[in-house]
Each structure stands twice: as structure tokens, then as C-alpha cells.
């Protein structure tokens, strides 16, 4: 482990990058759906925290990790519905409502989780080796000795890609975010669909939180997501609203996070505080790169992102 140039070290970093990236990936895919529908939700951090707490609390009491994940899904969706109510029905400012959701989620999770801090997890998602595939040299131990939530996310990424770019409802989803007036004229119920996607996005963010509290760091502590929700929002931009590219970004990120921890563990003579800055500095670098790329390829955010849809103004 001490030789940071060895293959074994690299494999272990990559194997740790996948689960670390998975938590961000769920949140990122959720935000992607929401933004594709034209709604910006900056409450990802709050929804992840509540998902992490809800998932851990249910798993703690039922000793069933899967029930925890389902609870996280429900909690994330429930929180997102507050945002949907405020920004879709009441047409409130999306930025401020999302910030309120983050503040609310982090405060409420800290309050409700006060008795669960430091409790050991009786149930969590352990590593499961996939028969045969896990025996592939290097790749097997990186990709196929992971927990169940990772395997679910392997399926979710192509599924969402196919849904967004190759199906009729996916086309409708894109229309919602690009031009809701057209979507309305197509006979779509803009408000109801936006509610649906905001809530689905929140549910995925909740699962992202549970991927931390039930898999990578089983347990609960205040603010345990440490900004990963915000990183997920940044990765949606980096991934140019494309699930496949978002997945690439999330694993890249997982790599930075895992690499940073391993370097600390390997006793690299760089202060751990500087190493801990890496994911955040990396996010800024990634956004700068993304801005150059979106300018060059003329791909940008969904045109109606962040704007409430009011029919009589367009009709």
C-alpha cells in the first residue's frame, strides 16, 4: 500500500472510486431529470442528507438495508415535493427555494438524527462479488466486487440515457425544459409532469444519501454528505445534461475522493487539509472546462431552466 505507483494501489483506488462516485451519481441523475424538465433544484444537499438519515434510521430499526434505501427514496421525494409546490405551483424563485431546501434538510436531519450519531449500522449494503465477472483480472475487482446500490446504478445510467434520448416520454421531458409553451401546445400537462420529475429527482438524491449512510460510510453523522450534493449539481453541468457523461463525471469525482483518502493513508507528505481541498478545487476546474466546451459545441442548459411556466404570458 505504501508504493503509490503500484498496480495494486491503482486498482484499490479505482475500486474505491466506484462506490464513492455512486452516491454522487444517484444525486446527479436525479438533478439531471429535474433540470431537463426545466426546474433547477439546489436542494440536493439537503435531500441527500435527509435520505442518508432516513435510510440509516429505517435500516437501524428494521435491520433491512433495502428498506432503508426505499425509505431514503421516499424521503427524498417528499422533500422535493415542497420545492415542486413552491416553484411549479406558486412560481417562487427556484434558486432561493432550493437553498431553503438545503438549509432545511441539513438542519432537520441534524435535529432528528441527534440520537443516531455514532451508532453502528446493524444492516448495510456489503460488497457482493458477481460470479465469473469478478474474476476478470483488475477490472473484475474494480467493477464487480461492489455493493448492490452500485449494481443498480450500473443499470440506471443506460436506462435513463435511453429514456431521455430514445423514447417518446423522454422527448416530452426535453420539451418541458426547452420550451414548455410548445409542450403545453402538444397537450402535455406541464405542471403535473414537472411535479413528477422534481419528485423523482429528489427521490434519487435521497438514494444517493443512503448510498453513503448505508454503503460507503455506514452510520450517521451531521452533514455527512460534506458538499457532495453541490458537487452533483456541478456535475450535471459538466455532464451537459447527459446521463452517460454525468456518470463519467461522477466516477472521476469518486476517483479524486478515493485517491485523496488513499494518498493520506499512504503517508504522502502533503497536508491532509490540502488533499481534502482537491474535490472542491476539481469541481471548479471541471466547471471551467465545461463552460469552454458548452461554448464551443453550443450545447447549453435547457432553455427554460429556472423559469416558471405561466401559460397566459405565452398563450
Amino acid at each position, binding site marked *: 500500500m505504501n508504493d503509490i505507483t503500484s498496480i495494486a494501489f491503482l486498482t484499490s483506488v479505482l475500486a474505491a472510486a466506484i462506490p464513492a462516485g455512486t452516491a454522487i451519481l444517484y444525486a446527479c441523475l436525479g438533478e439531471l431529470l429535474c433540470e431537463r424538465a426545466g426546474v433547477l433544484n439546489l436542494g440536493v444537499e439537503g435531500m441527500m442528507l435527509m435520505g442518508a438519515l432516513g435510510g440509516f434510521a429505517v435500516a437501524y430499526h428494521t435491520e433491512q438495508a433495502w428498506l432503508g434505501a426505499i425509505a431514503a427514496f421516499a424521503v427524498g421525494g417528499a422533500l422535493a415535493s415542497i420545492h415542486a409546490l413552491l416553484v411549479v405551483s406558486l*412560481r417562487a424563485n427556484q434558486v432561493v427555494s432550493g437553498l431553503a431546501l438545503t438549509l432545511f434538510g441539513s438542519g432537520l436531519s441534524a435535529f432528528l438524527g441527534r440520537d443516531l450519531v455514532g451508532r453502528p449500522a446493524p444492516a448495510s449494503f456489503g460488497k457482493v462479488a458477481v460470479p465469473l465477472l469478478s474474476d476478470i483480472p483488475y477490472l473484475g475487482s474494480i467493477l464487480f466486487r461492489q455493493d448492490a446500490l452500485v449494481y443498480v446504478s450500473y443499470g440506471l445510467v443506460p436506462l435513463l440515457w435511453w429514456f431521455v434520448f430514445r423514447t417518446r416520454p423522454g422527448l416530452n421531458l426535453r420539451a418541458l425544459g426547452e420550451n414548455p409553451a410548445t409542450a403545453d401546445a402538444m397537450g402535455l400537462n406541464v405542471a403535473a409532469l414537472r411535479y413528477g420529475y422534481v419528485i423523482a429527482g429528489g427521490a434519487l438524491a435521497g438514494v444517493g444519501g443512503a448510498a453513503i449512510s448505508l454503503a460507503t460510510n455506514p452510520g450517521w453523522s451531521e452533514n455527512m454528505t460534506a458538499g457532495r450534493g453541490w458537487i452533483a449539481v456541478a456535475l450535471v453541468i459538466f455532464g451537459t445534461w447527459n446521463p452517460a457523461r454525468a456518470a463519467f463525471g461522477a466516477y472521476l469525482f469518486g476517483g479524486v475522493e478515493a485517491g485523496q483518502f488513499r494518498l493520506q493513508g499512504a503517508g504522502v507528505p502533503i497536508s491532509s487539509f490540502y488533499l481534502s481541498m482537491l474535490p472542491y478545487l476539481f469541481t471548479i476546474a471541471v466547471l471551467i472546462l465545461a463552460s469552454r466546451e458548452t461554448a464551443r459545441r453550443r450545447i447549453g442548459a435547457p432553455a427554460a431552466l429556472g423559469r416558471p411556466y405561466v401559460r397566459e404570458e405565452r398563450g
Partner: protein
Amino acid sequence: MTQPQPAAASPEHPAVLRLEARAAPSQAVAVLVSIVSVALALLVGGLVLLASGEDPIAVYRVMFTGAFGSRSSLAETLVKTIPLLLTGLGVGIAFRMQLWNIGAEGQLYLGAIAATGIALFVLPDAPASVLIPAMVLAGLAGGAVCGAIPGFLRARLGVNEIITSLMLNYVAILLADQLVHGPWRNPVGFGFPGTEQLPDAAWLPRWGTTRVHLGLAFGLVAALLVWVVLRRTRWGYEIGVMGGNERAARYAGMATARNILLVMAFSGALAGLAGMSEVAGIGHQLQRNLSPGYGYTAIIVAWLGHLHPAGITLVAFLLAGLLVGGDQIQMSMGLPAAIAPMLQGTILFFLLGGEALGRYRLVRRSPSAGPRPRAEAR
């Protein structure tokens, strides 16, 4: 498609209640909405407390008396008003321009780092008349740099300032951690991470026996300054226009990129001053956990204060009370102080909802008004 009659509920949704824009939201409605949202948030917070087995009345009573009940508790509330006022003003002026600076926390830390550096390593022997102004300038500059980075990236490259400013929060806090654990650590600090104490000349004068310090004057002067800038200067006018419609501002010949950079730097400078006054007025050293999230609460301060300097000043005082009250219930009842941010988030939800209802009004519409013809929809 132009209908003389506003579109009614669609046939799939035969709702009879709908939102209709008001001609102009009145000032009275805005104030009423703020008060009602605080009240409703306290109600919801009370239900959460009740559901988790606490007595909400008792909790609120402890919070209230802890914040406003005596001379000393009132003084403590004023102490916490200082950083909230300064960061709230900074965030507020950026929000006016639709620049979502949520990096006030990091800007506060960088201001504190710069001011501490000046006092400990550059001018350790200077008299107060030199040292305090120098620290003020350093604090302003530290915060301004931290705010200008996302401002520059937004103005020149179109990079989303929300995320870059937030990411710098983590970076600035880790930088402070690194300094107090590493190069700036007090060698005789008994293992506590923190710098040496600042020289006496760096301490901001206090009011009597309380902890209320000169930073309060900084905050009030800053509020006045922001008001003057917004109301009486060309720059303030441009900020207002750009917040309304950036493209219109550009066509009118305003230097939008330069204004974005300047406003973000100004916004950061105010937060940096908050960091300086925390170090020079309260801690007298740079330490871990310098701020319990003032930079985030600032967002609520700014929005609840309707982005107006007077409103921000008032709300900073009230939310400072909420923070002091939160600390109080932690100390005397053993409940987590996280109740305060939870209530803040709830207040903001109700405020947003209430503002929408203030901007629009709920209209009852009889079905006979008829749904809009939707022949074009199929």
C-alpha cells in the same frame, strides 16, 4: 392564440381556484407576509418538536428569553448580529443583481485569515490606530478576492457562480484549518488548534462589560453605505437594471462583465469584514469553527429583509436572536442547536410561498367562465 380572457383551468384540471397576478404587490402585504411566514414556521417547528417528544412552548420560551430576555442576552444577540448583518448585506447586494453568491462563509474565513495574518506577522508591534485600519483593509481585501474569483469566472467564462462560490467555502475553511493546525499554530496552545492571541492593539474596543464590539458600527456603517450606493449612485442604478434584465443593461451600454466582477468583490469584501471583526472582536485569534454558518444564514437574512439594507439590519438582529436562542436550548435543555437552521429553512419556505401569494391573488372562478378552447392542443 391571444385570448382576451386569461386562460382558465384546463379541462383535465377543473380547478376553481387559480392565481392571478396583482397589479403591484404592496409594501404592507410584503411586511405582513414576512411576519406570517415567521409565525407559521414557528408553528411547524413546534409540531416537529412535539412529534419528537419535546415541549414546544418550553423550548420557545427558553429560546426567547435566552435571546432577548435580559441585558446580557440582548448583548449576545447584538454580538451575533454583527456577522449576520455584514454577510447579509454582501449577499443581498449580489442577489439584487441576480448574482447568487452563496460563498459568504468562505469569504468570511478568508477575511479572517487575512486580518489575522496582518496582526500576527506583518504589523505585530503597530499601535491600534494603525493596526485596526490595516486589519479592516486586509479583511475587506481577503473577502473581496474570494468573491472576485467566482465573479471573474462568471463574467469572463460564464461559469455558474452558485457552485464555484460554494466550493470556495470548503476550500477557505480547509485553508484556515491547515493554518491553525500547521504553520500558524500556537506552539504553546496546549494542543488546541488555533493561532497565538492577537496583540492587544488588534482587539476591537468593547461596549462596557459586554462582548458587543466595534464591529457593530462597521455593520451599521456598511448598511448605510449600501443604501447610499443603491439609492444615490449610478452604480447602484446599474445593479438594479442588471438584476431586472441583463440584456437590456448591456444594450444600454452598461459594462455588465465589469459590474459582475465588482459586485461579487464588494459582496465578498463585506463578508470578509465580518470575518475580520469576528477575529478582532470576539476570538482574538484564528481558530477552527470560527463561524457556525453565518454565511449561509446570510442568505435568509438577505431574502427575509427583501434585499433592502434596513430590512437586512432588522432581520439580522432577529435571526441573531434565533441563533443565540438555539445555543441556549443546547446548553440548558441538551437539544441540538440545529433547531435554529431548521427553523430558518422553514421560515424561508413560508416566505417564498407567501410572496407568491402576495404577488398573485387567489381567485375563485366559476366554471361558467369556461375553459379555454383547446382545439390546438390535440
